[in-house]
């Protein structure tokens, strides 16, 4: 078995995607000096991103443990890109945290090692061709982020990490039970042993599986991985984990980890869709997505903490994406994919901006941040652009994907579309209200200049703006192809 694994690791780009972060995690754990390790962290994520780009041109063969297809390439490229820009943001962010004594150099060594371990787990989960291996990787990703959320060791950070850990573990336990049930359903058709957990085998032969067993399995998988997506009512860990951990971690949680869990849900949705007698997985996803969207939209009004507010906005958008994929069909799937990409880029950009704000003002309380566009024009307008984008205003990318989701829903289920628009408007109101509070008016707090680099923030915003104005043809064709695959 280990020989098989090794021979598969010889496939170059896929191996690079796992080996670079894996080796870096070990290196960063032992190397001293935070300046060196922060740079190495950036270098390693850049190499990982380049390796993921190579998957676009050369597609390795399907293996027993790892594989690359049109669907997971999207997630890998997006995830490694956000991972790379966040590591660049993190390098300047943590230097400040070290200065003000919130973190020690020993903490940082651990932090960088965990960051790379997270990249490793993410890539493994996305590339796994075995549903058991995928589960292990998602669990590993959860554990690494739990440790990073708790890194400040304050009351709030510990509570957030504990809550995340407990809820995440329960979710992951339900997902494992679902995974076992899928194996049970596959065993009579494929036979005992390894093959009955291999994704490509499962999807080939799903037509003959016992549909009732698959139905029960999907409920567990949806609830289990749905907890990690942050869908209501299992979302309780998400705001705390975003608010109390270091800001780069909030950015990777929203920009990348939620997507990994969503990817797992989509895989199993495809499996159910391939079986004619199983329930249609769409309605369950539509309901969970819509509930999350509307619930989070109302919760946005009551926030007093800036990171917590944007965490609720992530729940809202993950709900919207789940809704789109639940609706299914080429157009809604295309819109869902586009929205997921836009949300990852925008939300991580917002967290970069929020990180700068929190550092320069020394607080995360919304009531203590005022007049940002006056005291810090570049940062203030950057944050305004981000919020305008996430609220779904044109000409930014999210407007286009939200418009596609809403219009395709109107054509098929007008009643659902009304609810959807209602939720979006409620969220829109809350975001614009809070944004005008913090961005305009008489400035409060420190007026000191921001020392860290704005490059990651504006790189993301530029991409979102560019996508809103013009989507390149090859990208559209690529996403359309994946949307067809999703059924």
């Amino acid at each position, binding site marked *: 078995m280990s020989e098989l694994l090794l021979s598969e690791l010889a496939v170059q780009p896929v191996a690079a995607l796992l080996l670079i972060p894996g080796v870096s995690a070990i290196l960063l754990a032992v190397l001293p000096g935070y300046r060196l390790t922060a740079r190495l962290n950036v270098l390693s994520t850049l190499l990982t991103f380049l390796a993921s780009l190579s998957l676009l041109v050369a597609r390795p063969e399907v293996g027993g443990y790892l594989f690359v297809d049109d669907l997971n390439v999207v997630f890998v490229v997006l995830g490694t890109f956000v991972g790379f820009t966040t590591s660049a943001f993190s390098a300047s962010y943590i230097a400040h945290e070290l200065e003000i004594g919130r973190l020690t150099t020993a903490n940082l060594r651990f932090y960088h090692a965990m960051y790379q371990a997270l990249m490793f787990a993410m890539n493994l989960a996305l590339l796994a061709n075995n549903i058991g291996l995928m589960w292990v990787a998602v669990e590993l990703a959860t554990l690494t982020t739990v440790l990073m959320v708790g890194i400040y060791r304050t009351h*709030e950070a*510990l509570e957030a990490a504990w809550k995340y850990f407990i809820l995440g573990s329960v979710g992951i336990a339900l997902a494992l039970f679902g*995974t*076992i049930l899928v194996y*049970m359903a596959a065993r009579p058709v494929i036979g005992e042993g390894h093959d009955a957990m291999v994704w490509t085998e499962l999807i080939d032969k799903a037509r003959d599986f016992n549909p*009732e067993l698959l139905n029960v399995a999907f409920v567990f998988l949806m609830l289990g991985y749905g907890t990690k997506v942050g869908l209501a009512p299992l979302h309780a860990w998400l705001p705390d984990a975003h608010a109390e951990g270091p800001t780069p971690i909030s950015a990777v949680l929203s920009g990348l980890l939620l997507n990994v869990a969503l990817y797992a849900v989509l895989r199993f949705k495809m499996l159910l869709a391939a079986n004619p007698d199983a329930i249609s997985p769409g309605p369950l996803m539509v309901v969970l997505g819509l509930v999350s969207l509307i619930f989070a939209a109302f919760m946005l009004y009551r926030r007093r903490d800036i990171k*917590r507010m944007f965490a609720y906005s992530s729940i809202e958008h993950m709900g919207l994406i789940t809704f789109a994929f639940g609706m299914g069909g080429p157009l809604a799937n295309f819109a869902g994919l586009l929205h997921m990409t836009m949300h990852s880029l925008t939300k991580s950009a917002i967290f970069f901006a929020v990180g700068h704000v929190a550092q320069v003002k020394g607080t995360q309380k919304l009531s203590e941040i005022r007049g940002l566009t006056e005291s810090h024009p570049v940062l203030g307008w950057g944050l305004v652009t981000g919020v305008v984008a996430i609220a779904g205003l044109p000409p930014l990318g999210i407007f286009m994907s939200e418009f596609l989701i809403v219009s395709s829903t109107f054509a098929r289920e007008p009643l659902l579309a009304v609810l959807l628009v209602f939720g979006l408007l409620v969220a829109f109101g809350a975001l614009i209200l809070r944004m005008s509070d913090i961005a305009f008016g008489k400035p409060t707090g420190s007026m000191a200049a921001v020392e860290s680099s704005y490059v990651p923030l504006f790189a993301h915003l530029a991409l979102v703006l560019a996508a809103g104005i013009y989507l390149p043809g090859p990208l559209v064709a690529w996403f359309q192809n994946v949307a067809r695959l999703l059924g």
Partner: protein
Amino acid sequence: MQPLALDVAHMLAGGLVLVSFMLLYQDRMFGLLNIFALHAVVLSLSIAWQAYVQNAPHLFIPGAIALILKGIIIPVALHRVVVKLGIHREIETVGGIGPTMLAGIGLVALSMVVMLRATAAADPLARQDLAFALSVILLGLLMMVTRRNAVSQVVGFLSIENGLILAATGAKGMPLVVEISVAFSVIVAFIVIGVFLFRIRERFDTVDLQALDEFRGERQ
């Protein structure tokens, strides 16, 4: 499948559900840890029987892990944590024992109805094992919901893991990779929880989650 093999497997898996119920009504910390050790021992017996019946010697590995790690090491370690933190008095529960037990019975009935119907085509050994495993998982969830104290929540979580291993070993021929990963994740999970417990102790002088709630970021 010989009837004897089926009966013994049935008895052991059913025994695990019974011990899960015993976990539910413990109101002393040490009692809880002792019953958890019993839970792990019953699980290891069940795995060993599966290994023998299925003629799958590799299943003895998760069985041994259940016995040594969960039956001995974890209870002893948690025992020491409890002594060190001085929280060996009564366990605070949400709601009374009676309603909790009734809810537990309801959950077991639910899992029987769901699993037996869904697995009508599967072989009988797997069917009952899955139904029992789901019962253990749901009872573990119930325990986590009804306990306010961090150590008993950890025990609830570990009993969920026991239910998962029961399901995984009952699924005939399930690849080894999953079993080891499950066992491994338990170790990792425990280390993480242990770290947390000690940190919480260090910072709060209590591991009562109710007390943790006081420090929430939004209640200023």
